[in-house]
């Protein structure tokens, strides 16, 4: 590390008090910057996550707190969002995003691509109500065993806290998915004057080098998964005020 050009022999422009105060601000700020990737996407429950939560107002205000795990841990498959709309005129419209033919310039294409990836993330990481109930019951069973065996109160309290956190996280992630998918469905429905809409997630796998050497194209349909329906709405479900 080297000093900026030609100023080493000059006295500092700021006095010791100013330098001291600014040093504290810089140290605090750097800690806040570091807390982002230390707590996101994964962090320690007893240290970096609570500290990051405390720094959350600064993170949000200054748009910091990101994990910066670009293409990590591994480059994965791409995800598309497909839709099928039945219009009020009885016509069937199908489409998907991102769409190279429709979305231009490339940065705009990338925005649609990120949106489809976000939808997939929410869909994939939000358990179904049945799976969620099952995991809640599992904790409940652990709690019952702990009680029957006369485990210390702290153990039971820990399990109760875990159950409470699970409910809270599930509620938040399912609301997040619901709000996002309704926004997308509502926009598409209005754009195409739809009566009903179905939304599907598709996953495009990365072909093996050996397949490509044998002549496969990257957009070969066999690398595209079977569309998985993730939501279905009627017009009245999306625009309740219209139906009233």
């Amino acid at each position, binding site marked *: 590390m080297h000093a*900026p050009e030609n100023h080493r022999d000059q006295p500092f422009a700021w006095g010791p008090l100013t330098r001291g105060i600014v040093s504290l601000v*810089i140290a605090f700020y750097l800690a806040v910057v570091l807390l982002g990737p230390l707590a996101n996407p994964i962090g320690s429950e007893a240290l970096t996550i609570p500290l990051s939560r405390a720094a959350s107002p600064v993170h949000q205000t200054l748009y910091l707190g990101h994990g910066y795990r670009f293409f990590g841990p591994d480059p994965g498959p791409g995800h598309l969002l497909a839709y099928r709309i039945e219009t009020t005129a009885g016509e069937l419209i199908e489409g998907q995003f991102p769409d190279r033919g429709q979305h231009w310039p490339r940065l705009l294409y*990338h925005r649609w691509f*990120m949106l489809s990836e976000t939808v997939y993330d929410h869909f994939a990481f939000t358990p179904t109500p049945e799976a969620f109930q099952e995991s809640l019951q599992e904790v409940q069973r652990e709690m019952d065993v702990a009680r029957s065996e006369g485990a210390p109160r702290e153990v039971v309290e820990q399990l109760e806290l875990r159950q409470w956190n699970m409910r809270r996280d599930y509620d938040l992630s399912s609301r997040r998915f619901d709000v996002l998918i309704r*926004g997308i469905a509502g926009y598409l429905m209005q754009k195409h004057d739809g009566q009903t809409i179905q939304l599907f997630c598709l996953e495009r796998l990365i072909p093996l080098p050996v397949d490509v050497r044998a002549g496969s194209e990257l957009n070969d349909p066999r690398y595209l998964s079977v569309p998985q329906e993730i939501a279905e709405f009627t017009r009245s479900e999306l625009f309740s005020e219209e139906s009233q």
Partner: protein
Amino acid sequence: MNGLFTMLCAYGRSWIDFWNHFWFEKRAADTLAVMRILVGSMLVYTHLVWTFELPVFFGQAGVLSTEYRGLFQWDPSYRWSHFEWFPSSAWLWGSHFAGLLVLLMFMLGWLTRVTGILSFLLVVSYANRATGAQFGLDQINAFLCLYLAMSDCGRAYSIDAWWRGQRGRGVVASTVMNNIATRLIQLHLCVVYLFAGLGKLQGAYWWNGEAIWGALASYEYQSIDMTWIADQMWLVNLLTLTAVTWEVTYPFLVWPRLTRPIVLLMAVAVHLGIGLFMGMLTFGLIMIYGNLAFIEPRFFRCCCGAVRTGQPLQRGDSGTEIGKAC
């Protein structure tokens, strides 16, 4: 005991001395001014592109509900956006074009102190409103804009500097704030690369050398056909291992004079590769622009002088071949 105490005091003093020189010396504005022009052009482009589908992403009836971005934690959300202040189409379009004008003014260095702060607020506001459709570009845009806004980057290569020159008012281009802003950009980049690299070390494909294939063979990302590389898997392995090694070691090797030019040239190569082959030229370029913070102001002053006089840049003109300049 006394000797140990004296030694510790001397050690402490040397740290304080280092800290003071690292942060509180003055720095000329040239590097930051060049960065302002380049980052500013990226900000203008990034936000200009939204114009194509502004109501779709930012409108009340668009794909992204205003409620959505508040659902990432239970605590109160501070993710504000000016687009929601008035739910009208006139406000949407009016504030968008006014915002583009502010970004353009910042890029040109016109009322830089004010337009810098406004540009940062705009970048954050757009990114917040578009939660769900942003990616790394928005994150880098935001922190580079923040540090440029707090610096005196308008004191060189700007309308402000030209105007002050016309009025015969001298410009003090070297300031402590320029140095603090430069150091923050440098350290923030180190954090970005370190965690990007550490994240990759958790993945099997970065260890077995096939990750670059995964990136180049992703149809959604692909912009130039690189599938010929399937015949040269040794090259894929080499590129993968080189990329991850470079990323993890960046925070340590970018500081010494000896290794800095190599690390920075690698940055250009890696980010141009991402930009050209994976369709993310904007992200690739903004990372390259950020890396300019490691080049001394003299280098740019010398380049500008060479352009102005039409003379080629001589080695040693400024004592600043990229490595030596720092």
